[in-house]
């Protein structure tokens, strides 16, 4: 366990350093565009998994939180000239508040009803932005990038570095939740909410906490989006695609461990980029087939496959897992 922790914290420290150094060693700009998108999905899938995976509340409102983060950043930039890091912080706060608000209104609903309510939340926010002329309304708005800070050559390279930091933060938060009392409480309410409540688990407080953290991370992932695209408009910013992709990545990666959505996001986002290059027509089909394949062949995702492979390689592993399970219980 200690070894795992050491290697995790080494990775958590190394990734931002890599994110700072790599853009300065003359690598091709295109790789940073791709890496930014992949990391953005890592954050979104990890954030989605906190509520969807750990607590079992399937959220279709990822696009709403992502879009809200993007527009919060735009408002902070346009109205106050706020720098990028302030924009991200503002987006995270607004995302957390929306998470709590949406949670209070919708968490009494369960299953498919909760999912429908999250779609409705996304539509409500998008409609509000569509009619808000200050941020361009339905016409959208072109965003002029300011001077690039911290000695980066281009804004895309800076945004890649920023996204590595957000990725590490999202992973640290997800890992902490998984291993702490919060995660155990969320698992309990996912398996049997009434039983968990009877046993003294503060279910509403935990669900609200999960909503707030998940919302804050999703909104933070959306905050650099206006500077990444240089053009923002509601239709693509609040796209249902973000919700579907985040969910699919968590499903393909596996929802029981923090590294499941990370692997799922890397696999799907990278495959999509490669497939788009190979065939402009077939790339959506390729990704769709990949998802279908995983749902049928590996319903527990990559996490399940890795666990299965470990069992096959080391027969003693099963006992260790059981022992750890009983320790938790």
């Amino acid at each position, binding site marked *: 366990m200690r070894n795992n922790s050491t290697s995790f914290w080494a990775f958590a420290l190394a990734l931002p350093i890599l994110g700072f150094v790599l853009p300065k060693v003359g690598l091709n700009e295109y790789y940073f565009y791709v890496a930014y998108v992949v990391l953005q999905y890592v954050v979104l899938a990890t954030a989605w998994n906190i509520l969807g995976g750990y607590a079992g509340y399937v959220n279709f409102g990822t696009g709403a939180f992502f879009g809200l983060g993007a527009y919060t950043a735009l408002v902070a930039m346009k109205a106050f000239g706020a720098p990028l890091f302030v924009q991200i912080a503002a987006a995270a706060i607004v995302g957390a508040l929306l998470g709590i608000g949406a949670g209070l209104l919708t968490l009494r609903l369960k299953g498919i009803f909760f999912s429908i309510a999250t779609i409705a939340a996304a539509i409500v926010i998008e409609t509000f932005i569509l*009619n808000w002329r200050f941020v361009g309304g339905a*016409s959208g708005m072109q965003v*002029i990038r300011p001077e690039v800070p911290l000695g980066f050559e281009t804004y895309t390279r800076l945004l890649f570095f920023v996204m590595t930091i957000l990725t590490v933060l999202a992973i640290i938060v997800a890992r902490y939740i998984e291993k702490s009392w919060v995660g155990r409480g969320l698992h309990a309410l996912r398996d049997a909410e009434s039983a968990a409540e009877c046993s003294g688990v503060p279910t509403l407080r935990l669900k609200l906490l999960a909503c707030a953290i998940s919302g804050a991370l999703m909104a933070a992932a959306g905050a650099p989006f206006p500077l990444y695209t240089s053009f923002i*408009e509601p239709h*693509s910013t609040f796209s249902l695609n973000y919700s579907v992709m985040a969910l699919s990545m968590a499903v393909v990666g596996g929802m029981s461990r923090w590294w499941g959505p990370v692997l799922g996001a890397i696999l799907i986002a990278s495959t999509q980029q490669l497939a788009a290059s190979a065939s*402009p*027509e077939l790339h959506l089909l390729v990704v769709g087939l990949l998802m279908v394949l995983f749902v049928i062949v590996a319903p527990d995702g990559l996490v399940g496959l890795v666990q299965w492979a470990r069992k096959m390689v080391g027969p003693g592993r099963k006992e260790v897992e059981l022992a750890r399970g009983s320790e938790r219980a």
Partner: protein
Amino acid sequence: MSNFTKRSVLRTMLLGLGLATIAQPIWAQDNPIKVGTSMALSGPLAGGGRQSRLALQMWVEDINSRGGLLGRKIELITYDDQGSPAQSPGIFSKLIDLDQVDLLIAPYGTVPAAAVMPMMKERQRLLIGQIGFQINSKTHHDMWFNNSPWSDADSWVGGYFKLGQKVGVKKVAFLAADQEFSQNILAGAKTLATKSGFESVYEQTYPPTTVDFSAMIRAIRAAAPDMVFVASYPADSTAIIRAVGEIGIGSSVKLFGGGMVGLQYEAVMNTLGSQLNGIVNYHTYVPEKTMAFPGVREFLDRYTERAKAENVDTLGFYVAPFSYAAGQILEQAVKATGSLDSVELAKYLRSNEVQTIVGPIRWSADGEWAEPRVVMIQFRTIKDGDAEQFRQEGKQVVVDPDRFRTGDLISPLSEAQRN
């Protein structure tokens, strides 16, 4: 070592030089000029994107059959941007950094194209536009040359309001989708209405997912406007015209239409058939004699055959000629300058007129057409279930501007519907 004399070294060098000279044409064939672009090949804009790709492929085939450019073949590299600004910057970085394209054509559509403009300015690359609106208004990139027959909202729908003034319009109703294009056009249309002294008696924007327009059409009818300006996308255009057909818009309406996207597409036109009669709408090209620019009909004949095979809109009036012309713009500039350098090409395009199948083009300082020429057409004598009729003259009569006019406006709408 002793065999390494000066003479043998010189001989080897000359032999190498000679071989390189002979091999150059062969090598040149293997080193094509790469032209890169992206377009929506999936998603709601795919109909136009596929037209655009086919037309550009035809330009590449045509130019390669004539021996290419600067003695080199042309290779077209396209990617699917799904019409999204989240996709196009990454794609254009790939085109420039990985594919190392020599020439660039902007994505099809305003939103994905606007997202690549800062990068084009940063990299100082020439960009030829295709069907986009006010893309360079904030970036002010001096190597941007749009290829759309409009410059601002006035140039797009100004003709519609001019017609309104001609037939004595006093009251106007606005109906527009809550989307990028329609909101841009609506803003311009409202300014034009104010300038023309029209009173707005009804204004409604609707979400893009709206399918039932009966309440809105009833409300417009109740407001009794003289003119109805609609800015809509293909699916809503169809639903609005059907609602008008079922409910009626009232005898007071002298003009109906203006900014409806979809009434240029074969599938929508076929679906609506005779319900189109009387509607006045913007267009980029119609097969009228005043718009018979050199080469356009020949191109469209060939395009139709190819489009049938590739399951793309076979009329192709709205997008295809302009995408083909985007290639012609590059072709003429490269031939004239003998260079692929963006600065050289931009310098040439800034100061020269280019001949294309959509007519001669000259650009103003902001990279938009110096002489926009959006036409207002009126649908006449359209029958149901006849796709071929849209290729005939007299079915989409140009009623504005005067230099392309092929007929007078028939007004009011009820009178025009009978013709």
